[in-house]
Protein backbone atom coordinates (compact mmCIF):
# COMPACT_ATOMS: atom_id res chain seq x y z
CA UNK A 1 0.00 0.00 0.00
CA UNK A 2 1.35 3.37 -0.97
CA UNK A 3 0.27 6.81 -0.03
CA UNK A 4 -0.59 8.57 -3.25
CA UNK A 5 -0.50 12.30 -3.48
CA UNK A 6 1.50 12.83 -0.33
CA UNK A 7 4.42 15.07 -1.19
CA UNK A 8 7.74 13.62 -0.14
CA UNK A 9 9.75 16.73 -0.97
CA UNK A 10 11.58 18.64 1.73
CA UNK A 11 9.26 21.60 1.28
CA UNK A 12 6.24 19.35 1.68
CA UNK A 13 7.72 17.88 4.85
CA UNK A 14 8.38 21.32 6.31
CA UNK A 15 4.88 22.37 5.35
CA UNK A 16 3.40 19.45 7.23
CA UNK A 17 5.50 20.29 10.26
CA UNK A 18 4.40 23.92 10.16
CA UNK A 19 0.76 22.89 9.88
CA UNK A 20 1.22 20.57 12.85
CA UNK A 21 2.78 23.36 14.92
CA UNK A 22 0.04 25.77 13.94
CA UNK A 23 -2.60 23.25 14.99
CA UNK A 24 -0.84 22.58 18.27
CA UNK A 25 -0.48 26.28 19.00
CA UNK A 26 -4.08 27.20 18.29
CA UNK A 27 -7.10 26.73 20.45
CA UNK A 28 -5.69 26.09 23.90
CA UNK A 29 -7.58 24.47 25.54
CA UNK A 30 -8.80 22.44 22.58
CA UNK A 31 -12.33 23.33 21.51
CA UNK A 32 -14.68 21.52 19.23
CA UNK A 33 -15.13 23.18 15.85
CA UNK A 34 -18.17 25.42 15.62
CA UNK A 35 -21.24 24.03 13.97
CA UNK A 36 -22.06 25.86 10.74
CA UNK A 37 -25.78 26.55 10.46
CA UNK A 38 -28.24 29.06 9.10
CA UNK A 39 -30.75 28.34 11.85
CA UNK A 40 -32.82 31.27 13.12
CA UNK A 41 -32.88 31.14 16.90
CA UNK A 42 -35.05 33.53 18.91
CA UNK A 43 -34.64 33.89 22.66
CA UNK A 44 -37.39 35.70 24.57
CA UNK A 45 -35.82 37.23 27.67
CA UNK A 46 -32.33 38.53 28.42
CA UNK A 47 -32.34 37.62 32.09
CA UNK A 48 -30.10 35.04 33.71
CA UNK A 49 -31.28 32.18 31.48
CA UNK A 50 -31.43 33.95 28.11
CA UNK A 51 -28.08 35.66 28.59
CA UNK A 52 -26.25 32.54 29.78
CA UNK A 53 -27.65 30.54 26.85
CA UNK A 54 -26.86 33.11 24.16
CA UNK A 55 -23.25 33.37 25.35
CA UNK A 56 -22.88 29.60 25.09
CA UNK A 57 -24.60 29.39 21.69
CA UNK A 58 -22.24 31.90 20.05
CA UNK A 59 -19.35 29.68 21.15
CA UNK A 60 -20.95 26.63 19.55
CA UNK A 61 -22.57 27.93 16.36
CA UNK A 62 -21.24 29.61 13.24
CA UNK A 63 -23.61 31.58 11.02
CA UNK A 64 -26.75 31.17 13.13
CA UNK A 65 -29.11 34.15 13.24
CA UNK A 66 -29.66 34.67 16.94
CA UNK A 67 -32.16 37.28 18.13
CA UNK A 68 -32.81 38.08 21.78
CA UNK A 69 -36.02 39.91 22.63
CA UNK A 70 -36.20 41.92 25.86
CA UNK A 71 -37.24 45.50 26.58
CA UNK A 72 -35.51 45.83 29.93
CA UNK A 73 -32.31 47.85 29.83
CA UNK A 74 -31.28 46.80 33.32
CA UNK A 75 -30.11 43.32 34.25
CA UNK A 76 -31.06 42.30 37.79
CA UNK A 77 -28.95 40.03 39.98
CA UNK A 78 -32.02 38.75 41.80
CA UNK A 79 -30.23 36.51 44.34
CA UNK A 80 -28.90 39.76 45.84
CA UNK A 81 -32.34 41.17 46.70
CA UNK A 82 -32.47 39.33 50.05
CA UNK A 83 -29.21 41.02 51.04
CA UNK A 84 -30.46 44.45 49.92
CA UNK A 85 -33.67 43.99 51.95
CA UNK A 86 -31.59 43.28 55.07
CA UNK A 87 -29.40 46.37 54.68
CA UNK A 88 -26.34 44.29 53.83
CA UNK A 89 -25.89 45.54 50.26
CA UNK A 90 -27.02 48.68 48.39
CA UNK A 91 -29.61 48.43 45.60
CA UNK A 92 -26.85 49.04 43.05
CA UNK A 93 -25.31 45.68 44.05
CA UNK A 94 -28.01 43.93 41.99
CA UNK A 95 -27.94 46.24 38.95
CA UNK A 96 -26.09 46.12 35.65
CA UNK A 97 -26.95 46.78 32.02
CA UNK A 98 -28.49 44.05 29.87
CA UNK A 99 -26.13 44.95 27.03
CA UNK A 100 -23.05 44.51 29.30
CA UNK A 101 -23.55 40.76 29.13
CA UNK A 102 -24.61 40.15 25.52
CA UNK A 103 -22.08 38.90 22.97
CA UNK A 104 -21.32 40.49 19.59
CA UNK A 105 -22.85 39.06 16.45
CA UNK A 106 -26.41 38.68 17.74
CA UNK A 107 -29.43 40.94 17.36
CA UNK A 108 -31.09 42.52 20.39
CA UNK A 109 -34.68 43.65 19.93
CA UNK A 110 -35.24 46.00 22.87
CA UNK A 111 -38.96 45.37 23.10
CA UNK A 112 -41.13 42.84 24.83
CA UNK A 113 -42.69 39.92 23.03
CA UNK A 114 -46.40 40.60 22.51
CA UNK A 115 -47.48 37.41 20.75
CA UNK A 116 -46.07 34.01 19.85
CA UNK A 117 -47.47 31.96 17.01
CA UNK A 118 -46.08 28.45 17.51
CA UNK A 119 -47.68 27.17 14.30
CA UNK A 120 -46.34 29.87 11.94
CA UNK A 121 -43.18 30.09 14.12
CA UNK A 122 -43.29 33.85 14.50
CA UNK A 123 -42.76 36.13 17.49
CA UNK A 124 -44.38 39.58 17.37
CA UNK A 125 -43.08 42.40 19.56
CA UNK A 126 -44.92 45.26 21.23
CA UNK A 127 -44.27 47.63 18.30
CA UNK A 128 -45.60 45.10 15.81
CA UNK A 129 -42.21 43.92 14.55
CA UNK A 130 -42.19 40.21 13.67
CA UNK A 131 -39.31 37.79 14.01
CA UNK A 132 -39.50 34.34 12.41
CA UNK A 133 -37.71 31.45 14.08
CA UNK A 134 -36.63 27.87 13.52
CA UNK A 135 -36.03 27.42 17.25
CA UNK A 136 -37.54 29.43 20.07
CA UNK A 137 -36.30 29.64 23.65
CA UNK A 138 -38.86 31.07 26.03
CA UNK A 139 -37.16 32.66 29.04
CA UNK A 140 -39.09 35.82 29.96
CA UNK A 141 -39.16 35.14 33.70
CA UNK A 142 -42.39 35.59 35.62
CA UNK A 143 -44.68 38.41 36.71
CA UNK A 144 -45.54 39.42 40.26
CA UNK A 145 -49.29 39.81 40.68
CA UNK A 146 -49.34 42.55 43.32
CA UNK A 147 -52.93 43.49 42.45
CA UNK A 148 -54.08 40.10 43.73
CA UNK A 149 -53.59 41.40 47.27
CA UNK A 150 -56.41 43.76 48.02
CA UNK A 151 -55.36 47.02 49.60
CA UNK A 152 -51.72 46.57 48.62
CA UNK A 153 -49.85 48.68 46.10
CA UNK A 154 -46.15 49.11 45.46
CA UNK A 155 -46.09 52.75 46.54
CA UNK A 156 -46.84 51.57 50.08
CA UNK A 157 -43.50 49.76 50.28
CA UNK A 158 -41.15 51.31 52.81
CA UNK A 159 -43.90 53.14 54.70
CA UNK A 160 -46.22 52.05 57.49
CA UNK A 161 -44.16 48.94 58.07
CA UNK A 162 -44.65 47.33 54.64
CA UNK A 163 -41.93 45.50 52.73
CA UNK A 164 -41.89 43.66 49.38
CA UNK A 165 -38.37 42.62 48.42
CA UNK A 166 -39.32 40.63 45.30
CA UNK A 167 -40.47 43.78 43.49
CA UNK A 168 -36.95 44.88 42.49
CA UNK A 169 -33.79 46.61 43.77
CA UNK A 170 -35.45 49.91 44.79
CA UNK A 171 -38.32 48.14 46.53
CA UNK A 172 -35.87 45.82 48.25
CA UNK A 173 -34.03 48.90 49.57
CA UNK A 174 -37.36 50.41 50.69
CA UNK A 175 -38.20 47.09 52.32
CA UNK A 176 -35.11 47.53 54.47
CA UNK A 177 -36.31 51.02 55.48
CA UNK A 178 -39.46 49.42 56.92
CA UNK A 179 -37.70 46.33 58.29
CA UNK A 180 -34.94 48.42 59.89
CA UNK A 181 -37.49 50.47 61.78
CA UNK A 182 -39.00 47.23 63.09
CA UNK A 183 -35.58 45.92 64.19
CA UNK A 184 -35.05 49.19 66.12
CA UNK A 185 -38.50 49.61 67.63
CA UNK A 186 -39.72 46.04 67.95
CA UNK A 187 -43.34 44.94 67.77
CA UNK A 188 -44.93 42.25 65.62
CA UNK A 189 -43.53 41.18 62.24
CA UNK A 190 -45.68 39.11 59.87
CA UNK A 191 -43.96 37.28 57.00
CA UNK A 192 -45.93 35.89 54.07
CA UNK A 193 -45.54 33.76 50.96
CA UNK A 194 -47.95 33.12 48.07
CA UNK A 195 -50.03 30.04 47.27
CA UNK A 196 -48.64 29.89 43.72
CA UNK A 197 -45.27 28.56 42.58
CA UNK A 198 -42.65 31.14 43.33
CA UNK A 199 -39.07 32.01 42.55
CA UNK A 200 -36.61 31.05 45.28
CA UNK A 201 -38.90 29.48 47.86
CA UNK A 202 -36.11 30.00 50.39
CA UNK A 203 -36.26 33.80 50.22
CA UNK A 204 -39.32 34.23 52.50
CA UNK A 205 -37.51 32.13 55.11
CA UNK A 206 -34.27 34.06 54.69
CA UNK A 207 -36.06 37.35 55.22
CA UNK A 208 -37.73 36.04 58.39
CA UNK A 209 -34.41 34.71 59.73
CA UNK A 210 -32.49 37.90 58.90
CA UNK A 211 -35.09 40.26 60.39
CA UNK A 212 -35.24 38.12 63.56
CA UNK A 213 -31.44 38.00 63.82
CA UNK A 214 -30.95 41.74 63.34
CA UNK A 215 -33.85 42.60 65.69
CA UNK A 216 -32.46 40.31 68.40
CA UNK A 217 -29.20 42.26 68.32
CA UNK A 218 -30.78 45.72 67.91
CA UNK A 219 -34.02 46.18 69.85
CA UNK A 220 -33.28 42.99 71.80
CA UNK A 221 -35.10 39.77 72.64
CA UNK A 222 -38.48 40.11 74.30
CA UNK A 223 -39.32 43.35 72.52
CA UNK A 224 -40.46 41.79 69.24
CA UNK A 225 -42.17 38.77 67.74
CA UNK A 226 -41.76 37.28 64.26
CA UNK A 227 -44.72 35.36 62.81
CA UNK A 228 -44.26 33.32 59.62
CA UNK A 229 -47.38 32.60 57.56
CA UNK A 230 -47.70 30.33 54.53
CA UNK A 231 -50.63 28.95 52.49
CA UNK A 232 -48.84 25.60 52.33
CA UNK A 233 -48.81 22.90 55.00
CA UNK A 234 -45.02 22.75 55.30
CA UNK A 235 -42.30 25.36 55.70
CA UNK A 236 -40.34 24.15 52.65
CA UNK A 237 -41.05 21.86 49.69
CA UNK A 238 -38.30 19.42 50.63
CA UNK A 239 -39.46 17.55 53.76
CA UNK A 240 -36.04 17.13 55.40
CA UNK A 241 -35.34 20.86 54.98
CA UNK A 242 -38.83 21.76 56.20
CA UNK A 243 -38.17 19.81 59.42
CA UNK A 244 -34.82 21.54 59.93
CA UNK A 245 -36.44 24.96 59.43
CA UNK A 246 -39.22 23.98 61.86
CA UNK A 247 -36.57 23.19 64.49
CA UNK A 248 -34.70 26.44 63.85
CA UNK A 249 -37.92 28.46 64.03
CA UNK A 250 -38.61 26.72 67.35
CA UNK A 251 -35.20 27.64 68.73
CA UNK A 252 -35.49 31.21 67.53
CA UNK A 253 -39.04 31.70 68.76
CA UNK A 254 -40.47 32.37 65.30
CA UNK A 255 -44.16 31.44 65.39
CA UNK A 256 -45.73 29.75 62.37
CA UNK A 257 -49.22 29.98 60.87
CA UNK A 258 -49.53 27.30 58.21
CA UNK A 259 -52.38 27.18 55.63
CA UNK A 260 -52.70 30.99 55.87
CA UNK A 261 -52.95 32.83 52.55
CA UNK A 262 -52.62 36.62 52.52
CA UNK A 263 -55.65 38.07 50.72
CA UNK A 264 -55.85 41.71 51.75
CA UNK A 265 -54.28 44.38 53.90
CA UNK A 266 -55.46 47.52 55.62
CA UNK A 267 -52.32 49.62 55.64
CA UNK A 268 -53.87 52.45 57.67
CA UNK A 269 -54.79 50.16 60.55
CA UNK A 270 -51.84 47.82 60.03
CA UNK A 271 -53.97 44.71 59.73
CA UNK A 272 -53.56 41.79 57.33
CA UNK A 273 -56.36 39.41 56.37
CA UNK A 274 -55.61 35.75 55.73
CA UNK A 275 -57.69 32.92 54.31
CA UNK A 276 -57.12 29.93 56.56
CA UNK A 277 -57.81 26.47 55.16
CA UNK A 278 -58.59 23.53 57.44
CA UNK A 279 -59.79 20.02 56.72
CA UNK A 280 -62.96 18.93 58.46
CA UNK A 281 -61.99 15.91 60.52
CA UNK A 282 -65.13 13.98 59.67
CA UNK A 283 -65.95 14.90 56.05
CA UNK A 284 -62.39 15.79 54.88
CA UNK A 285 -63.95 18.84 53.26
CA UNK A 286 -61.95 22.07 53.13
CA UNK A 287 -63.19 24.72 55.49
CA UNK A 288 -62.04 28.24 54.76
CA UNK A 289 -62.16 30.94 57.40
CA UNK A 290 -60.83 34.48 57.53
CA UNK A 291 -58.16 35.32 60.08
CA UNK A 292 -56.93 38.81 60.88
CA UNK A 293 -53.39 39.47 62.08
CA UNK A 294 -52.15 42.86 63.26
CA UNK A 295 -48.61 43.83 62.30
CA UNK A 296 -45.92 46.42 62.83
CA UNK A 297 -43.93 45.03 59.92
CA UNK A 298 -45.49 43.04 57.06
CA UNK A 299 -43.52 41.38 54.28
CA UNK A 300 -45.65 40.81 51.17
CA UNK A 301 -44.78 38.27 48.49
CA UNK A 302 -47.53 38.30 45.85
CA UNK A 303 -48.79 35.41 43.69
CA UNK A 304 -46.51 34.72 40.71
CA UNK A 305 -47.51 33.78 37.18
CA UNK A 306 -46.15 33.35 33.66
CA UNK A 307 -46.25 36.57 31.60
CA UNK A 308 -49.48 37.25 29.72
CA UNK A 309 -47.83 36.64 26.30
CA UNK A 310 -47.03 33.05 27.32
CA UNK A 311 -50.51 32.35 28.65
CA UNK A 312 -52.15 33.82 25.52
CA UNK A 313 -49.99 31.88 23.05
CA UNK A 314 -51.16 28.39 23.98
CA UNK A 315 -47.78 27.28 25.32
CA UNK A 316 -48.95 26.70 28.90
CA UNK A 317 -50.01 23.48 30.58
CA UNK A 318 -53.73 22.94 30.11
CA UNK A 319 -54.23 20.72 33.15
CA UNK A 320 -51.61 21.95 35.62
CA UNK A 321 -51.06 25.35 37.25
CA UNK A 322 -54.04 26.65 35.27
CA UNK A 323 -54.10 29.90 37.24
CA UNK A 324 -50.36 30.41 36.66
CA UNK A 325 -49.66 29.35 33.08
CA UNK A 326 -46.16 27.85 33.20
CA UNK A 327 -44.87 26.45 29.88
CA UNK A 328 -45.69 22.81 29.12
CA UNK A 329 -42.26 21.20 28.86
CA UNK A 330 -40.66 17.83 29.44
CA UNK A 331 -39.14 18.12 32.88
CA UNK A 332 -35.89 16.39 31.86
CA UNK A 333 -35.18 18.14 28.54
CA UNK A 334 -37.19 21.39 29.01
CA UNK A 335 -38.49 20.88 25.48
CA UNK A 336 -42.09 21.80 24.73
CA UNK A 337 -44.32 18.72 24.68
CA UNK A 338 -46.35 19.86 21.67
CA UNK A 339 -43.88 22.07 19.79
CA UNK A 340 -40.47 20.37 19.69
CA UNK A 341 -38.70 23.46 18.33
CA UNK A 342 -39.60 25.39 21.50
CA UNK A 343 -37.74 25.17 24.81
CA UNK A 344 -38.45 26.95 28.09
CA UNK A 345 -35.79 28.11 30.52
CA UNK A 346 -35.82 29.58 34.00
CA UNK A 347 -38.84 30.77 36.00
CA UNK A 348 -41.37 30.28 33.20
CA UNK A 349 -40.66 26.56 32.70
CA UNK A 350 -43.51 24.36 33.88
CA UNK A 351 -41.46 21.99 36.02
CA UNK A 352 -41.98 21.16 39.70
CA UNK A 353 -38.79 22.83 40.88
CA UNK A 354 -36.26 25.23 39.56
CA UNK A 355 -37.19 28.88 39.82
CA UNK A 356 -33.72 29.93 40.94
CA UNK A 357 -30.52 31.14 39.30
CA UNK A 358 -28.80 27.94 40.41
CA UNK A 359 -31.38 25.93 38.49
CA UNK A 360 -30.76 28.09 35.45
CA UNK A 361 -27.08 27.20 35.67
CA UNK A 362 -28.02 23.53 35.39
CA UNK A 363 -30.82 24.02 32.84
CA UNK A 364 -28.87 26.04 30.29
CA UNK A 365 -26.35 23.32 29.26
CA UNK A 366 -29.27 20.88 28.86
CA UNK A 367 -31.18 23.15 26.46
CA UNK A 368 -27.92 23.99 24.68
CA UNK A 369 -27.27 20.28 24.13
CA UNK A 370 -30.76 19.48 22.84
CA UNK A 371 -30.89 22.57 20.66
CA UNK A 372 -27.58 21.84 18.98
CA UNK A 373 -28.54 18.21 18.57
CA UNK A 374 -31.79 19.31 16.93
CA UNK A 375 -29.88 21.53 14.48
CA UNK A 376 -27.68 18.56 13.64
CA UNK A 377 -30.74 16.33 13.25
CA UNK A 378 -30.05 14.03 16.17
CA UNK A 379 -31.28 13.62 19.76
CA UNK A 380 -29.54 15.32 22.69
CA UNK A 381 -28.39 13.41 25.75
CA UNK A 382 -28.20 15.89 28.63
CA UNK A 383 -30.84 15.65 31.36
CA UNK A 384 -32.02 18.22 33.91
CA UNK A 385 -32.70 16.45 37.20
CA UNK A 386 -34.44 19.34 38.93
CA UNK A 387 -31.31 20.63 40.63
CA UNK A 388 -32.00 23.67 42.74
CA UNK A 389 -29.78 25.33 45.27
CA UNK A 390 -30.62 27.68 48.08
CA UNK A 391 -28.03 29.23 50.36
CA UNK A 392 -30.62 29.47 53.12
CA UNK A 393 -29.40 32.34 55.27
CA UNK A 394 -30.28 31.82 58.93
CA UNK A 395 -28.31 34.70 60.45
CA UNK A 396 -26.10 37.53 59.25
CA UNK A 397 -22.94 35.45 58.91
CA UNK A 398 -24.46 31.98 58.68
CA UNK A 399 -26.34 29.93 56.09
CA UNK A 400 -27.25 26.38 55.14
CA UNK A 401 -26.19 25.37 51.63
CA UNK A 402 -29.29 23.41 50.67
CA UNK A 403 -29.21 21.66 47.28
CA UNK A 404 -31.89 19.25 46.06
CA UNK A 405 -33.53 17.70 42.99
CA UNK A 406 -36.98 16.74 41.67
CA UNK A 407 -37.12 13.79 44.06
CA UNK A 408 -36.48 15.93 47.16
CA UNK A 409 -33.10 14.25 47.54
CA UNK A 410 -30.34 16.38 48.96
CA UNK A 411 -27.54 16.62 46.40
CA UNK A 412 -24.67 18.41 48.15
CA UNK A 413 -21.90 19.75 45.91
CA UNK A 414 -19.32 19.23 48.63
CA UNK A 415 -20.36 16.05 50.44
CA UNK A 416 -18.41 15.41 53.62
CA UNK A 417 -17.14 18.99 53.64
CA UNK A 418 -20.10 21.33 53.69
CA UNK A 419 -23.02 19.76 55.53
CA UNK A 420 -26.29 20.86 53.87
CA UNK A 421 -28.37 21.11 57.04
CA UNK A 422 -25.81 22.82 59.28
CA UNK A 423 -25.70 26.56 59.77
CA UNK A 424 -22.20 27.38 58.57
CA UNK A 425 -20.03 30.42 58.08
CA UNK A 426 -18.56 28.94 54.87
CA UNK A 427 -22.05 28.67 53.36
CA UNK A 428 -22.58 32.34 54.19
CA UNK A 429 -19.24 33.18 52.56
CA UNK A 430 -20.40 31.39 49.43
CA UNK A 431 -23.62 33.43 49.33
CA UNK A 432 -21.97 36.73 50.23
CA UNK A 433 -18.77 36.50 48.20
CA UNK A 434 -18.74 33.69 45.67
CA UNK A 435 -22.34 33.54 44.48
CA UNK A 436 -22.47 36.75 42.46
CA UNK A 437 -19.09 35.92 40.95
CA UNK A 438 -20.34 32.48 39.92
CA UNK A 439 -23.56 34.02 38.62
CA UNK A 440 -21.64 36.52 36.48
CA UNK A 441 -19.38 33.76 35.18
CA UNK A 442 -22.57 31.85 34.30
CA UNK A 443 -23.97 34.86 32.41
CA UNK A 444 -20.80 34.91 30.33
CA UNK A 445 -21.34 31.22 29.59
CA UNK A 446 -18.30 30.17 31.61
CA UNK A 447 -19.85 28.27 34.48
Amino acid at each position, binding site marked *: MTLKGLSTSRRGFLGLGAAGLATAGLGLPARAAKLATKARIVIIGAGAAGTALVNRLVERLEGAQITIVDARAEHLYQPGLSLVAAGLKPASYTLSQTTDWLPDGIALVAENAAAIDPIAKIVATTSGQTVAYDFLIVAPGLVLDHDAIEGFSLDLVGQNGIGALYAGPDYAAKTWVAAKRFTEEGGLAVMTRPATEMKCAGAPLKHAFLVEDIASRTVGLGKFEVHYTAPQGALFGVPIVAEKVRMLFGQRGIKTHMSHKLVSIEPGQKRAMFEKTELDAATKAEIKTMVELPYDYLHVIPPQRAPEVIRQSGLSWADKWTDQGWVEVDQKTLRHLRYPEIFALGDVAGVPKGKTAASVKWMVPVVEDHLIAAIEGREGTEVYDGYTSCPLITRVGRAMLVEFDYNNNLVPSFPGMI*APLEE*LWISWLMKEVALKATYNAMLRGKA
Partner: protein
Amino acid sequence: MKELTFETLIAVFEEIFGQGLFWAMVVAALLVTAAYLYVLIRDRSMSMRKFLLAQLSMPFGAVASVLFIQAMTDSHFRDIGGPIDVIVLLGVAVLGAVGTAILVYTAQSLFRRKST
Protein backbone atom coordinates in the same frame (compact mmCIF):
# COMPACT_ATOMS: atom_id res chain seq x y z
CA MET B 1 -21.02 23.46 41.40
CA LYS B 2 -21.11 22.23 37.85
CA GLU B 3 -18.02 22.17 35.66
CA LEU B 4 -15.67 23.56 38.30
CA THR B 5 -12.64 23.94 36.07
CA PHE B 6 -9.57 26.12 36.51
CA GLU B 7 -11.03 28.53 33.96
CA THR B 8 -14.27 28.82 35.98
CA LEU B 9 -12.26 29.43 39.14
CA ILE B 10 -10.27 32.22 37.49
CA ALA B 11 -13.53 33.72 36.19
CA VAL B 12 -15.00 33.57 39.71
CA PHE B 13 -11.98 35.31 41.26
CA GLU B 14 -12.05 37.96 38.54
CA GLU B 15 -15.68 38.63 39.43
CA ILE B 16 -15.03 38.77 43.18
CA PHE B 17 -12.23 41.32 43.05
CA GLY B 18 -12.72 42.81 39.59
CA GLN B 19 -10.44 41.90 36.72
CA GLY B 20 -7.91 44.67 37.40
CA LEU B 21 -7.56 44.15 41.15
CA PHE B 22 -7.43 40.36 40.86
CA TRP B 23 -4.60 40.32 38.36
CA ALA B 24 -2.83 43.16 40.22
CA MET B 25 -2.92 40.97 43.35
CA VAL B 26 -1.64 37.97 41.40
CA VAL B 27 1.20 40.09 40.03
CA ALA B 28 1.95 41.52 43.50
CA ALA B 29 2.06 38.01 45.00
CA LEU B 30 4.35 36.83 42.20
CA LEU B 31 6.62 39.87 42.61
CA VAL B 32 6.97 39.38 46.37
CA THR B 33 7.67 35.68 45.85
CA ALA B 34 10.22 36.48 43.16
CA ALA B 35 11.86 39.12 45.39
CA TYR B 36 11.97 36.58 48.25
CA LEU B 37 13.67 33.99 46.04
CA TYR B 38 16.01 36.73 44.78
CA VAL B 39 17.21 37.72 48.26
CA LEU B 40 17.57 34.05 49.25
CA ILE B 41 19.78 33.37 46.23
CA ARG B 42 21.63 36.66 46.56
CA ASP B 43 22.45 36.17 50.24
CA ARG B 44 23.04 32.42 49.89
CA SER B 45 21.66 31.93 53.38
CA MET B 46 18.73 32.73 55.65
CA SER B 47 19.46 35.51 58.11
CA MET B 48 18.15 34.27 61.45
CA ARG B 49 17.84 37.80 62.78
CA LYS B 50 15.57 38.79 59.87
CA PHE B 51 13.76 35.50 60.16
CA LEU B 52 13.10 36.16 63.87
CA LEU B 53 11.40 39.46 63.10
CA ALA B 54 9.50 37.78 60.27
CA GLN B 55 8.30 35.09 62.69
CA LEU B 56 7.31 37.66 65.27
CA SER B 57 5.16 39.38 62.64
CA MET B 58 3.26 36.19 61.81
CA PRO B 59 0.59 36.36 64.54
CA PHE B 60 -0.21 39.94 63.52
CA GLY B 61 -0.56 38.86 59.89
CA ALA B 62 -2.79 35.95 60.94
CA VAL B 63 -5.12 38.11 63.04
CA ALA B 64 -5.18 40.92 60.47
CA SER B 65 -6.15 38.60 57.61
CA VAL B 66 -8.97 37.01 59.63
CA LEU B 67 -10.34 40.41 60.66
CA PHE B 68 -10.04 41.63 57.05
CA ILE B 69 -12.08 38.70 55.75
CA GLN B 70 -14.70 39.13 58.50
CA ALA B 71 -14.99 42.86 57.82
CA MET B 72 -15.36 42.22 54.08
CA THR B 73 -18.14 39.67 54.61
CA ASP B 74 -20.27 41.06 57.50
CA SER B 75 -19.33 38.15 59.75
CA HIS B 76 -17.91 37.53 63.23
CA PHE B 77 -16.30 34.78 65.29
CA ARG B 78 -19.79 33.87 66.59
CA ASP B 79 -20.68 32.65 63.08
CA ILE B 80 -18.32 29.69 63.25
CA GLY B 81 -20.77 26.81 63.00
CA GLY B 82 -18.84 23.62 62.30
CA PRO B 83 -15.45 21.99 61.71
CA ILE B 84 -15.19 23.24 58.12
CA ASP B 85 -15.58 26.82 59.38
CA VAL B 86 -12.66 26.34 61.82
CA ILE B 87 -10.58 24.93 58.96
CA VAL B 88 -11.42 27.90 56.71
CA LEU B 89 -10.63 30.33 59.56
CA LEU B 90 -7.28 28.64 60.28
CA GLY B 91 -6.53 28.51 56.56
CA VAL B 92 -7.08 32.26 56.25
CA ALA B 93 -4.90 32.81 59.36
CA VAL B 94 -2.09 30.58 58.06
CA LEU B 95 -2.11 32.27 54.65
CA GLY B 96 -2.00 35.68 56.31
CA ALA B 97 0.81 34.61 58.65
CA VAL B 98 2.99 33.06 55.95
CA GLY B 99 2.37 35.93 53.56
CA THR B 100 3.30 38.49 56.20
CA ALA B 101 6.45 36.55 57.18
CA ILE B 102 7.64 36.41 53.57
CA LEU B 103 6.82 40.07 53.06
CA VAL B 104 8.63 41.18 56.25
CA TYR B 105 11.68 39.02 55.55
CA THR B 106 11.93 40.23 51.95
CA ALA B 107 11.44 43.87 52.91
CA GLN B 108 14.21 43.67 55.50
CA SER B 109 16.57 41.97 53.05
CA LEU B 110 15.93 44.52 50.36
CA PHE B 111 15.97 47.69 52.45
CA ARG B 112 18.05 46.96 55.59
CA ARG B 113 20.86 44.89 54.16
CA LYS B 114 23.74 46.67 55.85
CA SER B 115 22.32 46.88 59.33
CA THR B 116 22.31 43.13 59.85
